[in-house]
């Protein structure tokens, strides 16, 4: 069972994530968007969305520090375990709570604002469940270690080595199996999130427009050479006006 969960599943997840993203990028460029609902409602979004997004960016950075950088490295530069632990809990806790608060605000907005709720697909709802679950279980692992004090589990001795070992294709299944249940749950839900990632609106994160910082302001492009004028591909996004199409979902 442990082999399946911690030795096979991660690679299946990566295959789905990478393959799915490539497939989506190739075949569904038109659907690759944030699907912003700011046109319908802006006030709550202006508060909730930045909190959530900046929070989750901090959380991602925290995961990087915790999982990728070995304990020996931080100790080598003189960072004590207590100091690291305090930082991880304090900064990570704030980021996590911000992320959770942000997404709760966004979900409340989504549910209570009529047009926004109507624009929410089943796909979105599934994605929200998994995303919130991943955040909640992640916070649980953090908070559990706060309340358990020093008796808290040091994931840098179990989860992190396992995570790094995945990259050299020799998964350290034993150390991951030794981690407590809360970490197992968070990891599994996280993997589920990455599995559905390419098929939800979350893909917009993969095209974060960092190249905007470097590109010229004015973009010239030659006319598309392709079907000649008069010959036109079936355009995506042409649906009749009306609200009927909303009911069809």
């Amino acid at each position, binding site marked *: 069972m442990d082999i399946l969960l911690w030795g096979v599943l991660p690679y299946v997840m990566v295959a789905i994530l990478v393959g799915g993203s490539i497939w989506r990028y190739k*075949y569904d460029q038109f659907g690759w968007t944030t699907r912003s609902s*700011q*046109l319908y409602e802006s006030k709550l979004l202006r508060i909730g969305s930045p909190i959530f997004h900046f929070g989750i960016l901090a959380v991602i950075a925290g995961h990087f520090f915790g999982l990728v950088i070995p304990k020996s490295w931080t100790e080598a530069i003189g960072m004590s375990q207590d100091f690291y632990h305090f930082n991880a809990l304090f900064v990570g806790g704030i980021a996590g709570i911000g992320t959770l608060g942000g997404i709760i605000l966004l979900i409340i907005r989504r549910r209570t604002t*009529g047009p926004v709720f*109507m624009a929410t697909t089943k796909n979105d709802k599934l994605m929200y469940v998994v995303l919130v679950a991943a955040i909640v279980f992640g916070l649980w692992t953090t908070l559990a270690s706060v309340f358990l004090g020093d008796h808290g589990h040091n994931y840098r001795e179990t989860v992190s080595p396992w995570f790094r070992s995945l990259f050299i294709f020799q998964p350290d299944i034993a150390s991951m199996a030794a981690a407590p249940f809360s970490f197992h749950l968070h990891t599994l839900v996280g993997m589920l999130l990455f599995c559905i990632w390419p098929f939800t609106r979350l893909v917009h994160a993969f095209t974060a427009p960092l190249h905007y910082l470097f590109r010229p302001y004015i973009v010239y492009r030659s006319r598309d050479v392709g079907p000649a004028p*008069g010959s036109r591909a079936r355009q995506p996004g042409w649906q009749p006006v009306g*609200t009927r199409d909303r009911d069809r979902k």
Partner: protein
Amino acid sequence: MKVMAQVGMVMNLDKCIGCHTCSVTCKQAWTNRAGTEYVWFNNVETRPGQGYPRRYEDQEKWRGGWELNRRGRLKLKGGGRLKKLFGIFASPVQPELDDYYEPWTYDYETLTDAPLGDDFPVARPKSLITGNDMKIEWSANWDDNLGGTSQLGHLDPIVEKIRKESEEKIKFEFEQTFMFYLPRICEHCLNPSCMASCPSGAIYKREEDGIVLVDQDRCRGWRQCITGCPYKKMYFNHKTGKAEKCTFCYPRIEVGIPTVCSETCVGRLRYIGIFLYDADRVTEAASIEDEKELYQAQLDLMLDPDDPEVIAGARAEGIPEDWMDAARRSPVYKMAKVYKVALPLHPEYRTMPMVWYVPPLSPVVDLLSEQGHDAEDAGNLFGAIESLRIPVEYLAELFTAGDTEIVTGVLRKLAAMRSFMRGISLGNDPDDSIPEAVGMEPEAMYEMYRLMAIAKYNERYVIPKAHVEQAHNLEEMGCSLDFDDGPGMYPSDPFGEASGKPTPVAVENFYALKQRQTTDGQTEPGELRGRVNLLNWDGRGVPRGLFPKTEDNPQMSPDSPAHGGGAAGPGPDYGGPSSQAGPSGNPLESQPPREP
């Protein structure tokens, strides 16, 4: 100098009667679908009025266009690149649906389905966003014809500005003096700020004709372009999550016919033609410090197509000769640069807009006639233009960043043309002193009159066709083996029939139809690759491929009656002339002939 061509438009506002035909036909053609209910690529505003979306000209609020930074360099008013990226999670100043309006339809079904009763059934307004009953409170042209302006006129950002700078009494006169219509499409700017705001780089300017388009596949819905465009002609499709904008009807322009809004304009006030401009100097021109000089700077960018240096430059850039010829005959170039009667809309946004406007003289003329003056007399008109300070100021805020002298100059030219031509129509000798008074030659004034008053179709629209010599062969692209039973019959896309990119389908275009209808011969073999479209079959002869071939009658004679399935013709021509009975195994050829 880098010579580039730009399709431009001029609108003669004197002729606009505010019928909204352009808006309606544009909407029917382009934005008649879910997600774009509130989108008007073309809209007609009554000025003074708030415009669409409401008060879009208030850039202190909406942060559109460019401004100069402390070092005198261009900077997006909405903020630099880093600021844009940090604000990406919730666009700081995006108009909400309330700033446009909530689109609606009516519950027409009730009118026919309502049970018999004492009351007449009514069709209630239903929101197109939520589907619920709604109260209609605003629309795309709610203040049409100054509707509600006595209450809301002060909300016009230009009225607000003029009032701040002039005395209190303006208000009263202002409301009594004038009203005119301002049709607006995307400006297809030379220095577009929507493009500069787009984090994904999905908005681009076409090298060949300067049309600004959104790549729907690359747009990720970050919404920064909506803030960036000072004209608010970028719209967010709330169903697809992508930005959309006026396309200058590029599929029509490419085959040499005018845009839908121009074609259907009953006032015939729109002109389409080519500008040649110097792409290297655009940024420099847009960075001029004094806003009032921006108009002249933009005018200086426009190159003279008769100048040998420009011609050489254009050739070096590969601009085709027929485009050069069109540039020489361009009505928009003449009105903007030669006669100098067309002005750009809001040059102070520094985007170098390429839809130009001839400011309306009509309020002046109307006022004079109401007061009992001879409204066509040059002296009266000249005097009135000077004294009607307020309309000129208003127009100057729209077209010249507040420089009333330029607007007055244009209006004087228009007034001079009226009186000069009236003299001629009345059989008097042409009074050459009138054109001279506005610094024009009599011949030039006569030509201007032809262009603006007679306005023949082929003088209004001088649109060179896009060069598609190679691309034409690609019509109905696709694998030549993709016919029934052929090796390519099964779509090669890995996820089955519907996956992958859609195969383009040839739609009859204007020139193809015209050629087919006027030709003596039959439909060119191979042109439609064996498909017969009965909708545009003109009844001449029997198109190849319409009927299956029989053994005794391998070639259907063109004049035999097309009476039924027994008549025979060659099978569909899939690959050109060689496929008559080739080994490719035409499925229809191998079928047994059906009995009549």
